[in-house]
């Protein structure tokens, strides 16, 4: 079959690879119909998250059709159209029992590196390096999904592939970001990042009761899309002082909750950003946390900072004093896909959330390398390239 493989830092290629097979009782094989690029892939491609190997198949946000099931699979049948959560969860450990699926104890068979880096190993993630279990990804014609009964969900009729594909990762990540904010109704929520996750977080915050949502980015076309599709207010940080603007927009209070949906390769303007970028390029630091710093500084006293952008290692100039003295609540984590996907599919089916507009660049798998280039360089107003292996 054909698959998009990582070939070294910054290098991708579409290659012939063997097809996957059932390896364990709970496995299913999914014929991929749509597979989206994700901002967190860029950290892998650019070598900021460790343990990628030449030939690894990328991709973790996808939808498709079940073509084979292991003997232990009960909930799914061949022919079912499914969307699959990016994080792998066993369904049998304490974390899964308490719906903290991205912390699953048993789904990363290669936990040593993350245990050393972080003290414990969280769940494995499909197509996300050998530190996250070494699973093959979804930018391929077929993918093996372990614990299929736990991780794959039937797609409601009438929902398009290019919309439901985001129920795999961007929607549950955005929803969890807003869920962390514990909104009671009437709050002002600021969201850093107008990519797929940021826009889904903004929509989720609206549904959960936020009165005003302010989205921050530097790309005018993304901000325009967010304003147009979701009716949010926007700040372009390349033109405006964000802290000043947020203070002014909230009459001095600051946002009640600040969501960071950017991650470790955050952009900014000014000399501190140049310094952070130089350090990261020389691998002297792992993460550029400019948007996290800003979120903490902007947040109102006693407010919540919710981090769902992916971070990998160590940061510097972390404003711990601001967080401590303002008595902020910090919430963060990889999303618990399996907890949120069924509810999100219901909302998708009735049109309450419509992520289809994120798929600005549908294309065949063969064009995947160009798809990532468009996405990384934000060319042609690309929000997401979505690959179609069957096309």
């Amino acid at each position, binding site marked *: 079959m054909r698959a998009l493989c990582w070939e070294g830092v910054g290098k991708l290629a579409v290659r012939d690879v063997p*097809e996957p*097979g059932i390896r364990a*009782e709970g496995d299913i094989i999914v014929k991929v119909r749509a597979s989206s690029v994700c901002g967190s892939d860029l950290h892998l491609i650019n070598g900021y998250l460790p343990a990628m190997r030449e030939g690894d198949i990328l991709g973790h946000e996808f939808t498709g059709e079940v073509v084979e099931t292991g003997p*232990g699979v009960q909930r799914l049948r061949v022919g079912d159209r499914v969307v699959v959560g990016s994080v792998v969860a066993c369904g049998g450990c304490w974390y899964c029992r308490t719906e903290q699926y991205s912390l699953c104890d*048993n789904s990363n068979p*290669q936990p040593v*590196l993350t245990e050393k880096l972080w003290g414990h190993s969280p769940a494995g993630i499909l197509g996300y390096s*050998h530190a996250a279990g070494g699973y093959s990804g979804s930018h*391929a014609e077929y993918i093996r999904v372990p614990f299929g009964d736990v991780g794959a969900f039937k797609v409601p009729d009438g929902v398009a592939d290019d919309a439901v594909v985001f129920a795999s990762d961007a929607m549950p990540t955005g929803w969890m970001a807003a869920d962390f904010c514990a909104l009671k109704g009437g709050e002002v929520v600021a969201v850093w990042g107008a990519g797929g996750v940021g826009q889904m977080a903004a929509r989720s915050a609206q549904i959960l009761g936020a009165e005003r949502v302010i989205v921050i980015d530097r790309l005018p076309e993304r901000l325009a899309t967010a304003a147009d599709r979701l009716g949010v207010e926007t700040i372009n940080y390349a033109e405006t002082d964000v802290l000043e603007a947020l203070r002014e927009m909230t009459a001095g209070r600051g946002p009640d909750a600040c969501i960071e949906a950017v991650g470790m390769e955050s952009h900014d303007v000014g000399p501190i950003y140049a310094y952070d970028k130089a350090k990261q390029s020389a691998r002297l630091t792992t993460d550029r946390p400019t948007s996290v710093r800003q979120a903490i500084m902007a947040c109102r006293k006693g407010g919540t900072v919710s981090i769902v952008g992916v971070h990998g290692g160590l940061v510097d100039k972390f404003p711990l004093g601001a967080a401590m003295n303002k008595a902020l609540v910090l919430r963060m984590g990889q999303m618990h896909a399996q907890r949120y996907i069924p509810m999100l599919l219901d909302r998708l089916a009735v049109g309450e959330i419509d992520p289809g507009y994120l798929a600005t660049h549908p294309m065949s798998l063969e064009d995947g390398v160009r798809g990532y280039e468009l996405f990384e360089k934000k060319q042609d107003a690309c929000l997401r390239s979505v690959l179609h292996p069957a096309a």
Partner: protein
Amino acid sequence: MTSNATRWALLGATTVTALGAGRAVARRRRRHQPDRQGGWYVVRRGVTVDRPMDAVIGFWTDRERLDRALAEWATLEQLDDNRWRCVASDPAGGGTEWRAEITVDGPGRLSWRVDEGPVPQRGHVDLVSAPQDRGTEIRAELRYRAGGLLRRVLGPVGGDEPDLGLRDALRRIKSLVETGQMIDTRHDPSGRDATQEKATDRVRERLTTGGRA
């Protein structure tokens, strides 16, 4: 930079730094080494399984499930009511065998001993109820003799030490009891050729073996 005093100062500073770094490394190594008692290395490892104690014991006494779970890497033979013989082969191949005699000492307690093979060992496992409805703690203690003078001086190094095997086994048991299977991504497809795959297998091995239990 040419005066003798400067040279001596630099040399002195370098020596002090090197000694400091060496001591720090040595201390760190020592901290990672197992205790020694009467010629045996002693390691204790534990893992929490999210099942009540009966279910954990039940897993070991359900012969069919156990055989299925062990199929790939070990066989069990019952000697009498309380004694079993376990023969495990090295998962990496090479024909190495690990023969252990396992004795059930009471409810929630079993012990094993390995007399044949390069590393003699004794071990026992206790099952304890975990607090807060968190299931059962499997607490294992392993004693083994290190072979060779050099090895005894340097402390156990390399991937063959029984401690790594113990951590691996506990993780395996937890997964089997909680999910009925062990995840394995070794055969997932990739764009690697045979040489690259071999190098990746070595990385996998390092990422799989050891770490915390």
